[in-house]
C-alpha cells in the first residue's frame, strides 16, 4: 500500500509551499482584467442564455466543418494516419496560425476573433518539427511501452564483485543524470508547439514518458545494486547545451541525433557488457526506446534541410552550431565517470581496465562512424567538419 511519506523524512521539514507576493498576485489579476471584456462578454452571454432557459444548438450546424465523413480503422485500430485520410483533418499547415487549443479540423473560424492567443506558441513552422516517420514512431512508442517496476525481474538481480558493481552503478548514475534532459528538452518545445502540429506533440509526449522510465530504471538499478555514485561537470555542460539550443531543430540534432545516438551506443554496449541478465534486459529495453528518438532526430533534420527555402544558409548555420555542440557533447563522453566504468565492464575487472580501453577504442570508431552516417542520411554532410576525433585519443600524449 502506498502510504504518504512524511515531509520530514524527505528533507522538506521547514519548507513552505510558495505564496505569491501582493505584486505578483496583482499582476496576474491585471493580466486577466486586461482581457476582461473579451471573456466576460462570453460569460455574460452564457449566463443570460441559461437564465432565459434558452438553447443555442448552434453546435448542430455543420457548415464550414467536415461532418459526416467517417474514419475507418486499419488492421492496427484507428491510427492518426487513418483519421488524417479523412478530408479536412489531415492537412497539416506549413505555418500554424491558430494559437489556442481549437482542434485542427473543427469548426473554429467563426470564433477566431473571440478566442485568446497563447503567447507561448512560438514554433509556427511545420518544418521546424515535422518528420515523415513521426506518426509511425508515435504508434510504435505506444505499442512498445514497458514498466520499469514490473517488467524487470528485480528479484533476480545478482550481487557482483565490488569493482564491477561500482562500475555498473557509476554507469547507471551517468544514465540517470543524462536521461531526464531528454525529457526536459521535448517538454520545453512541446509547450511552444501549436496544437495544429498534434502528431509531433503526441510523439514528443511519448519521448517524455520514455525518458522518465529510463531515469527511473537506472536510478532503481543503481540503488538496488549499491547506490548512486558520481555526478560529473562534463555531463552537466552537455545537458545544458542541449537545453539551451536556440531552435527546436538544432536542439533535436544535438539531443536526438548526436546525444541519443551516442547514448544508444552506450545502451548497446551496456547490453553487451552486462554482467547479469537483469542488466541485459534493462539495456535491451532502453535501447529500443532510444532508437525511436534517434530515428525521429534524423528524419526531422532531413525534412528541415530538404524543405528549407535557404538550404545553404541553413546548413552553414547548423555546422556552426554543431562545431560547438559536438565539443560540448564530447565533454560528457570523455568524462572519467563514464569512460572508465565502461572500460572496467568491457575488460571484466578493474585490473583489466587497459584491455577495456582497447575495446572502447574500437567502439568509439563505430559510434562516431554511425553519427556521421546519420548526418549524411539527413542530408547534412558533417564528416569534413566533424570536431569529434574519429579515434579515441587514448594515450596519444604518452
Amino acid at each position: 500500500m502506498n502510504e504518504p511519506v512524511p515531509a520530514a523524512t524527505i528533507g522538506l521539514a521547514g519548507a513552505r509551499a510558495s505564496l505569491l507576493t501582493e505584486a505578483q498576485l496583482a499582476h496576474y489579476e491585471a493580466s486577466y482584467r486586461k482581457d476582461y471584456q473579451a471573456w466576460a462578454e462570453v460569460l455574460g452571454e452564457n449566463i443570460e442564455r441559461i437564465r432565459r432557459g434558452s438553447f443555442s444548438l448552434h453546435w448542430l450546424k455543420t457548415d464550414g466543418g467536415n461532418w459526416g465523413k467517417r474514419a475507418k480503422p486499419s488492421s492496427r485500430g484507428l491510427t492518426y494516419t487513418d483519421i488524417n485520410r479523412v478530408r479536412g483533418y489531415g492537412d497539416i499547415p506549413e505555418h500554424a496560425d491558430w494559437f489556442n487549443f481549437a482542434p485542427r479540423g473543427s469548426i473554429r473560424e467563426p470564433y477566431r476573433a473571440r478566442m485568446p492567443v497563447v503567447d507561448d506558441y512560438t514554433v509556427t513552422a511545420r518544418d521546424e518539427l515535422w518528420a515523415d516517420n513521426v506518426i509511425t514512431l508515435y504508434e510504435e512508442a505506444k505499442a512498445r511501452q514497458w514498466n520499469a517496476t514490473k517488467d524487470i525481474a528485480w528479484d533476480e538481480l545478482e550481487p557482483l564483485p565490488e569493482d564491477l558493481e561500482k562500475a555498473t552503478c557509476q554507469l547507471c548514475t551517468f544514465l540517470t543524470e543524462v536521461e531526464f534532459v531528454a525529457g526536459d528538452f521535448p517538454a520545453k518545445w512541446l509547450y511552444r508547439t501549436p496544437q495544429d502540429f498534434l502528431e509531433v506533440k503526441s510523439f514528443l509526449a511519448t519521448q517524455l514518458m520514455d525518458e522518465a522510465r529510463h531515469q527511473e530504471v537506472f536510478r532503481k538499478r543503481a540503488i538496488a545494486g549499491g547506490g548512486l555514485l558520481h555526478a560529473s561537470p562534463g555531463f552537466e555542460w552537455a545537458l545544458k547545451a542541449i537545453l539551451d539550443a536556440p531552435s527546436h531543430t538544432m536542439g533535436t540534432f544535438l539531443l536526438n541525433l548526436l546525444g541519443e545516438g551516442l547514448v544508444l551506443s552506450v545502451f548497446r554496449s551496456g547490453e553487451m557488457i552486462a554482467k547479469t541478465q537483469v542488466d541485459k534486459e534493462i539495456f535491451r529495453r532502453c535501447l529500443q526506446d532510444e532508437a525511436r528518438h534517434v530515428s525521429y532526430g534524423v528524419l526531422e533534420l532531413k525534412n528541415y534541410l530538404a524543405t528549407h527555402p535557404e538550404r545553404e544558409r541553413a546548413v552553414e548555420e547548423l555546422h556552426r552550431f554543431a562545431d560547438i555542440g559536438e565539443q560540448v557533447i564530447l565533454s560528457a563522453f570523455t568524462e572519467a565517470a563514464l569512460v572508465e566504468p565502461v572500460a572496467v565492464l568491457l575488460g571484466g575487472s578493474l585490473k583489466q581496465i587497459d584491455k577495456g580501453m582497447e575495446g572502447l577504442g574500437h567502439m568509439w570508431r563505430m559510434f562516431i562512424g554511425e553519427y556521421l552516417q546519420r548526418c549524411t542520411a539527413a542530408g547534412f554532410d558533417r564528416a569534413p567538419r566533424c570536431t569529434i576525433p574519429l579515434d579515441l585519443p587514448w594515450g596519444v600524449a604518452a
Partner: protein
Amino acid sequence: MSATADTLARDVVAFPSRAWFERLAALMNANRTRQEQLGYVDCIAQFTVLDGAADGGALAYRISFEEFEALGVEEPTTRDLGPADFALEGSLATWREMIENIAAGKGRPDLEHSLNRLSHMGTPLQLVYTDPVRMDCYFRFNQSLQEFVNASALFTTAYGR
C-alpha cells in the same frame, strides 16, 4: 505455450533452412499474446549464414515482420539486402553456438550469446545495412527479434542441409 505452439515444437528441423525460420515464424504467430506485450514489429530482417550452403557459400533468409506477426520467410538467391532493412551475418559455427546456447538456457541465451552481444562489435555476427535509419529497426525491435530466435529452444535443431 498454446496447443498450436506445442504441436509445432515436436519435430526436428534442419539449420540453416527456410523451414527452420518458418518454424520460428509459426511459433511467433502462435504466441500473439506475447507479441502484443512487446509491441509492434515492422521491419524486414535478413539472417545470413555465410558458409551455410553445401558448397560453402552463403545462405540468406529474409523474414517480413508486420504488427505482431511474421508474415513470411523468403530465401533469396544472394546475400544482397534487397528489401531487407538490415542483415545479421555470421558463420554457421556462430549461429550454431547461439542456437545451442539458447536451447541450453531453455529459451534464454546466456550473457555472451544475445543477438546484440554477438553483433555489437561487428564480430562474430555483423550487422549489415545501407541506410542507417532502416538499420535502427534492428535496435527498435531488438527484444522482439531476440524472442523470435529464442523460440528455437522449443524444437530440436539438426545442423547442416
